[in-house]
């Protein structure tokens, strides 16, 4: 891969990955505010999810795979790259599983019906966004320190 293209792909990967983590951090703040009684914040969650978090997550994963395959690091050669792939994929799957609850909470907020019945969903928003943020920060930590360790695979 030409160095200029490699740099561009790396740039897109860094921006989408950091954007993913940043947007999840913003989501967590909104989820905590909602749990604290500010029910109207749930109206914003589907917008943040579908217009920022999901696109950033998908782009981060896809561009990350392209970036790794286009460099000597490889996708599965080094443990830190392989673990990053697993962490990002897990975060994306959990995010997509949560989109139904996000939509349901927004609908309840629009109807002014946030209350005891929605409490479990509200708790799930805080729990999953906090967990997701930890996972994404761990991925960023691996990218920065690149701990040693070869898997023995050639891809």
């Amino acid at each position, binding site marked *: 891969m030409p160095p200029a293209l490699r740099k561009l792909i790396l740039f897109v990967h860094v921006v989408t990955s950091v954007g993913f983590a940043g947007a999840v951090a913003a989501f967590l703040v909104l989820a905590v505010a909602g749990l604290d009684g500010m029910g109207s914040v749930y109206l914003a969650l*589907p917008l943040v999810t579908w217009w920022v978090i999901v696109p950033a997550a998908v782009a981060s994963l896809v561009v990350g795979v392209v970036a790794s395959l286009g460099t000597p690091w490889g996708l599965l050669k080094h*443990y830190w790259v392989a*673990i990053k792939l*697993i*962490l990002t994929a*897990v975060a994306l799957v959990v995010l997509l599983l949560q989109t*139904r*609850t996000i*939509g*349901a*909470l*927004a*609908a*309840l907020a*629009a*109807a002014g*019906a946030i209350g005891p*019945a*929605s*409490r*479990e*969903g509200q*708790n*799930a928003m805080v729990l999953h966004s906090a*967990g997701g943020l930890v996972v994404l920060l*761990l991925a960023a930590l691996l990218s920065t320190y690149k*701990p*040693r*360790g070869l898997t023995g695979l050639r891809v």
Partner: protein
Amino acid sequence: MANAKPATGVPGWVKLIGAGLLVLLLLAAVMIALGHNPLAHMNHAAMPMPAGS
């Protein structure tokens, strides 16, 4: 003479992350088995419907 570190094998930090992910997976499985579903108590009539439906 001190023993040299083995060059092969799964590094400790990989095992740690693997164990963490396994614990999260087990926790999720237990929560699902116990019937925890955030959507279960919500008013499904209030859920957004696809456009045109």
